[in-house]
């Protein structure tokens, strides 16, 4: 575990990409295979489920530290992280152990089916032989909350260096439906496994947001435009007579969307499509909130299946007749996609996402303004001769979203953040005017600079009217411009509306609270 803790510290202590890759490469060159496998799993989001409830962990930690539970609970929000709080309050370890990362992971997995006394004994025992960083990691792994500031991309790069494998090939190897319990380091990285290959998705190609005017992209005839849908990115795989659906977060979501089961009847084996999963009704997308009802459910009740049926709006073809065609230019992939989907019936739940024709950038700029009418959140621009790359790369694909809807709102509640933002007030509730009263309508967390967060934090401390646990009611004084992507009816909310992707665009120092917008202004933005 010490080697993994050292790796974690090295990654945590630097913001340099090179230093991070170097630390990872070093680990992959020196660690034992089972530890490397777990390291890859953890850094690609394959964490085991929570083995012990956090309530129990708090009790056990307070007991071992000899402090009352209330003192633990007061300390936790100041530290900002439960695993860290536990690691910090416990007495120093009384002995040492040379158990490795994979030993500990095995131990953690064995706790899930164990009874509570066994769990407690094992956890206290672990705490007693680990140092502070190791304990922190152990707690994170135990509670299923392990995250680290390293992208899968960097991990993949380090692994490809350590094993002398090409990076995109490595990225592909790491995809798919594996866990450290179902494979070995050798099988995953070096061996060919046809059964695993069958379900293995291609790494998604991700676009950057377009910042400059589209004119900077050159000739319009080099580009293809498509609507940018507000659903979830999905990769539909038809291989070996069966189908698999992957989300962009590399989660296998086949069972959540039974609509696609019939696609095997209409599409040939050896087909992989990239597209957007959307809730779909009468030839148009339903609001994202309808799709959201489906995302969290592993099994889907009949009624929901009827109320919020989904389709895949396919916009790219990655594998055709069993052949990986990602290297072929977009124009060719598109042509093949259209041929493939030309006569597909509605039951297949796969619809081609249309190309948006345009002759010059001005036309496209005008079209983009109509995105909301098209139930889209903007446009995608893709270079016609571009291959399908892996990961987020600049140059060939751009997302060109419509400007967000905006409203000026008054901050009325503040709450401190977590982790890096613990002790800074970063989570705010905003209100608009309605008949002389301020009605809360959204929360927002992001959009301000660290300096602004520090400034508002100092202000909140001096202007707290009331406390409700961690939440503070503050003097309604500061106005913020809130940006959001959409607005829907919501009987569950006091204001009667719910926003999509709300965030703070700027702090309106120039506006007093009395000049913030009204609830009527807000409702006027509804489609």
């Amino acid at each position: 575990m010490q080697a993994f803790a050292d790796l974690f510290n090295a990654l945590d202590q630097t913001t340099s990409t090179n230093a991070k890759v170097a630390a990872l490469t070093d680990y992959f060159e020196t660690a034992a295979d089972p530890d490397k496998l777990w390291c890859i799993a953890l850094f690609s989001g394959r964490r085991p489920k929570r083995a012990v409830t956090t309530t129990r962990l708090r009790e056990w930690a307070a007991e071992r530290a000899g402090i009352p539970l209330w003192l633990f609970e007061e300390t936790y929000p100041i530290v900002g992280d439960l695993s860290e709080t536990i690691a910090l309050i416990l007495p120093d370890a009384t002995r040492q152990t040379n158990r490795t990362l994979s030993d500990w992971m095995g131990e953690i997995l064995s706790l899930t089916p164990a009874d509570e006394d066994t769990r407690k004994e094992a956890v206290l025992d672990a705490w007693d032989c680990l140092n502070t960083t190791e304990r922190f990691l152990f707690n994170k792994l135990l509670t299923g909350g392990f995250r680290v500031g390293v992208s899968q991309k960097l991990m993949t790069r380090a692994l490809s260096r350590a094993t002398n494998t090409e990076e995109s090939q490595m990225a592909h190897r790491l995809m798919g439906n594996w866990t450290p319990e179902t494979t070995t380091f050798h099988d995953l990285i070096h061996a060919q496994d046809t059964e695993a290959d069958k379900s293995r998705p291609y790494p998604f190609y991700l676009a950057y947001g377009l910042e400059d005017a589209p004119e900077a992209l050159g000739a319009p005839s080099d580009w293809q435009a498509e609507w940018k849908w507000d659903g979830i990115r999905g990769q539909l795989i038809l291989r070996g007579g069966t189908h698999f659906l992957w989300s962009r977060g590399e989660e296998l979501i086949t069972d959540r969307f039974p609509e696609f089961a019939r696609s095997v009847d209409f599409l040939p084996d050896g087909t992989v499509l990239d597209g957007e999963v959307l809730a779909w009704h009468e030839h148009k997308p339903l609001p994202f909130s309808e799709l959201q009802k489906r995302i969290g459910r592993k099994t889907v009740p009949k009624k929901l299946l009827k109320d919020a049926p989904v389709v895949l709006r396919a916009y790219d073809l990655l594998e055709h007749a069993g052949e990986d065609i990602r290297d072929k230019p977009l124009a060719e992939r598109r042509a093949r996609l259209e041929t493939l989907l030309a006569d597909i019936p509605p039951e297949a739940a796969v619809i081609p996402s249309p190309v948006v024709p345009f002759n010059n950038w001005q036309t496209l700029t005008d079209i983009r303004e109509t995105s909301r009418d098209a139930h889209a959140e903007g446009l995608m621009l893709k270079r016609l001769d571009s291959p399908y790359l892996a990961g987020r790369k600049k140059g060939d694909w751009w997302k060109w979203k419509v400007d967000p809807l905006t409203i000026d709102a008054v901050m009325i509640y503040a709450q401190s953040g977590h982790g890096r933002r613990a002790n800074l007030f970063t989570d705010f509730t905003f209100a608009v005017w309605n008949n002389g009263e301020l009605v809360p309508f959204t929360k927002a967390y992001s959009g301000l600079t660290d300096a602004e967060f520090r400034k508002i934090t100092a202000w909140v401390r001096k202007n707290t009217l009331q406390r409700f646990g961690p939440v503070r009611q503050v003097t309604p004084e500061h106005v913020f411009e809130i940006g959001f992507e959409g607005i829907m009816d919501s009987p569950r909310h006091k204001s009667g509306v719910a926003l999509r992707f709300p965030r703070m665009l700027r702090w309106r120092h120039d506006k007093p609270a009395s000049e913030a917008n009204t609830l009527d202004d807000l409702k006027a933005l509804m489609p």
Partner: protein
Amino acid sequence: MRADPVLTFTDRGIYCPAGDFYIDPWRPVDRALITHGHSDHSRWGHQHYMATEAAAPVMHHRLGDVSIQTTPYGAKTQIGGASVSFHPAGHIPGSAQIRIEVGGEVWVVSGDYKPEPDGLCESFELVPCHAFISECTFGLPAFKWAPQSVVSEEINAWWAANAAEGRFSLLGAYSLGKAQRLMSLLDPSIGPILTHGAVEATNEVLRAQGYPLPATTRVTGDLDVKAHTGGIVIAPPSAFGTPWAKKFGRAATGFASGWMRLRGVRRRRAADRGFVLSDHADWTGLNDTIRATGCEKVFVTHGYTEIFNQWLLSQGYDSAIVATEYTGEGADTDDVAEVD
């Protein structure tokens, strides 16, 4: 029984009615007894100051030509009906706890204190008392310090690794106290020790008093940077990211403070490394000290006062909170308490 308590708590600060003086007051008063030279304790504008002989030079350096009556540690001075003495607090060079005795009853104001000896400043002295007014900057069970020797090894290893790569190490520390403590922990065989002007100005004052500081080089405009490659630069954190810091190229940055115990704060600092090194008592130090004074009454101030007070009450102490000007909101003072 006496009518007045030995000390009272006013909107100007801690006040002794028997001696008609204040301790570390935050508004101008006639007579102020000062625990140590940090600006939140030693403020500008009082008529008459009293401090230890060791603290006075830095106070003059910071406050200018003010009237300071000095006293050696441990010597008793009668002020009105109060007998007053200063005792080492182990916080920074010259820092003191102030003991006030009136009619046989002893109260002690801790100021800021650190029980662990650091080899530079006068070591903390335990002063038995009836009432103890204790800071609690780090009055949470999450704050526990490793021994200084462990942290100094970490810092020297970090410096040596950077030096081996031909990089400067930029170590952030407050100009008075932490900066000098860090210097005294450094291993000069690794490379040259450079200082920011603000730090060096304090060094000069302390060297003249005889505090053992290693040889340092002040960073000036015409410094031959190349000749000092691999050196460590001690600077106030405010100098990070300024044009001043640019001359050191891609220096490794570090910061030493008790707050570095928290990962969130460490990451927010945007320094490469955070070393957990504080000039205040940790959770264990606070609890042990309070117990060892044998006090019957505790007043807590500066820090997580609400939580720490509740803890002391639950441990059977007769405890209360002293409000300071910056409203004692325990959980929130962390960003403000820069002077650590």
